[in-house]
């Protein structure tokens, strides 16, 4: 059954240095299924025209594919309306959009923004830029030593000056599902809106933005098997309506004159310039793949087996420290350090064994400081990875460690 899934991903059959590729860097970017490649090809070959404006046939085809993707995303995350789905170039662009535009409208000098200690730089730096510009204050929700967010400290961190809380659904380093529903509840009780960075969350967890009740949810397409340069900002209409445009240009305007320009309605108001009309339609087959994989019992069984196997192997090895340990919240993403072995050496040796994994700070320097490390190794698994690959990884890691000792 898993073979059927793997066959959908031609890139997985690659050989590197004469060895079969074992791709364990899925948290950085996922591979694309053939259906995504085909949709892209189809768009370029038979539907390549700029969307929305022109009246010719191809423009119609392209617009339909682009807007169809919006409907698909809306259904996927159960957004109340399609106007609340804004396409961006990725999660980073979406956070920047909110930080800039929401910040412009709602954040004043002395106001506060809260992020967590476990955020990706993309959910830190846009807020820092905003805080510099507005002379507002960035506050940090800490984590416990086991990697869990210190949610019990959140309420006391919120003040009448807190204007927004931006928090990841799943940290790209710790691989733990954060209690975002509880976070939203705590924040809303104090009237504070919440942005959820779903770059990892959307891949591993079902997301219903109405049930979650978050104010913004952002994610990238490329980690979700769609084309690079695609991304989504979901925002509640009340906020998107009240926020000024982020960028000016084509598409986002209603009428332009030197005296007064008026803006297009949602979502075009936030989609200035030529959009990624070749890429966005790939979200449709990508989402279809996610839904298939989630409904596929053998994929789910294999994923659970991989998570348990790697977790057990790493945690029982005294030379190894895993960061993000509570098993109940763990996704198959493992960041770890090996005593007396540098992460770069291990990654370099494992690379030559055909294993692609991430080493370094993983775009989360503040978290590395909090954990007291200069970098880590990270193995992140996707639905096409097998238990056999996990076993090969553990065996290869053992070999690599021995080479260094």
């Amino acid at each position, binding site marked *: 059954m898993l073979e059927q899934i793997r066959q959908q991903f031609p890139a997985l059959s690659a050989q590197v240095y004469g060895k079969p590729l074992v791709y364990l860097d899925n948290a950085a970017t996922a591979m694309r299924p053939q259906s995504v490649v085909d949709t892209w090809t189809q768009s370029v070959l038979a539907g390549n025209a700029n969307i929305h404006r022109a009246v010719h046939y191809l423009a119609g085809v392209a617009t339909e594919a682009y807007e169809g993707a919006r409907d698909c995303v809306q259904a996927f995350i159960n957004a109340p309306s399609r106007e609340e789905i804004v396409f961006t170039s990725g999660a980073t662009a979406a956070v920047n959009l909110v930080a800039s535009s929401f910040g412009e409208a709602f954040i004043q000098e002395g106001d506060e923004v809260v992020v967590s200690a476990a955020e990706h730089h993309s959910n830190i730096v846009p807020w820092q830029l905003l805080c510099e510009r507005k002379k507002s204050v960035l506050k940090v929700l800490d984590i416990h030593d086991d990697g869990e967010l210190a949610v019990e400290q959140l309420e006391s961190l919120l003040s009448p000056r807190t204007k927004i809380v931006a928090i990841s659904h799943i940290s790209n380093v710790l691989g733990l599902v954060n209690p975002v529903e509880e976070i939203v509840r705590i924040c809303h009780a104090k009237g504070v809106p919440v942005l959820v960075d779903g770059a990892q969350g959307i891949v591993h967890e079902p997301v219903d933005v109405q049930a979650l009740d978050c104010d913004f949810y952002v994610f990238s397409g490329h980690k979700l098997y769609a084309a690079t340069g695609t991304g989504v900002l979901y925002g509640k209409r009340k906020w998107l309506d009240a926020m000024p445009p982020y960028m000016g240009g084509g598409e986002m305007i209603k009428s332009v004159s030197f005296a007064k320009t008026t803006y297009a309605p949602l979502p075009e108001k936030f989609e200035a310039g030529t959009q990624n009309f070749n890429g966005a339609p790939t979200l449709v087959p990508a989402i279809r793949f996610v839904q298939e994989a989630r409904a596929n019992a053998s994929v789910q069984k294999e994923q659970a087996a991989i998570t348990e196997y790697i977790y057990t192997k790493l945690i029982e090895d005294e030379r190894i420290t895993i960061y993000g340990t509570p098993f109940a919240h763990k996704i198959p993403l493992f960041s770890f350090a090996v005593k007396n072995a540098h992460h*770069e*050496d291990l990654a*370099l040796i494992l690379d*030559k064994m055909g294993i692609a994994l991430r080493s*370094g700070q993983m775009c989360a320097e503040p978290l590395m400081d909090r954990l007291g490390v200069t970098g880590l190794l990270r193995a992140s698994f996707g639905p096409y990875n097998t238990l056999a690959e996990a076993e090969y990884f553990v065996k290869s890691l053992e070999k690599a460690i021995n080479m260094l000792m």
Partner: protein
Amino acid sequence: MSLEEKKQQVVEDFSVYDEWLDKYEYLIELGKGLEAFPEEKKTEERLIKGCQSRVWLDSEERDGRLYFTADSDAIITKGIISLLISVYSGCTKQEIAADDFGFVAEIGLKDNLSPTRANGLVSMIERIKEIAG
């Protein structure tokens, strides 16, 4: 040994290994054999940027020749810097400045390192050139 002879020696030493893992094994041995580098010398000025790991390079000039010492927190990188300084220690500034560092490409080190890693190597070479320049 002249600079040319030293470079030739390195190329020969490397050529006996077909497999990349064996080349790494060799670099690891070189790294382990590198002379201890005093902790107090691990300063910001001696740190080389552009590596995932940290590399410190120090030099002194005696009788018109440069002598290098180095360290890294990663062992393969330590092996690479060890290789570089074993070749260039004892050379005059003029010799180093005139050298094209082509032997690094010849042993395949540059191509077979990941780009970030190759950046580290480039930074190490740049620093040696800078000291000589």
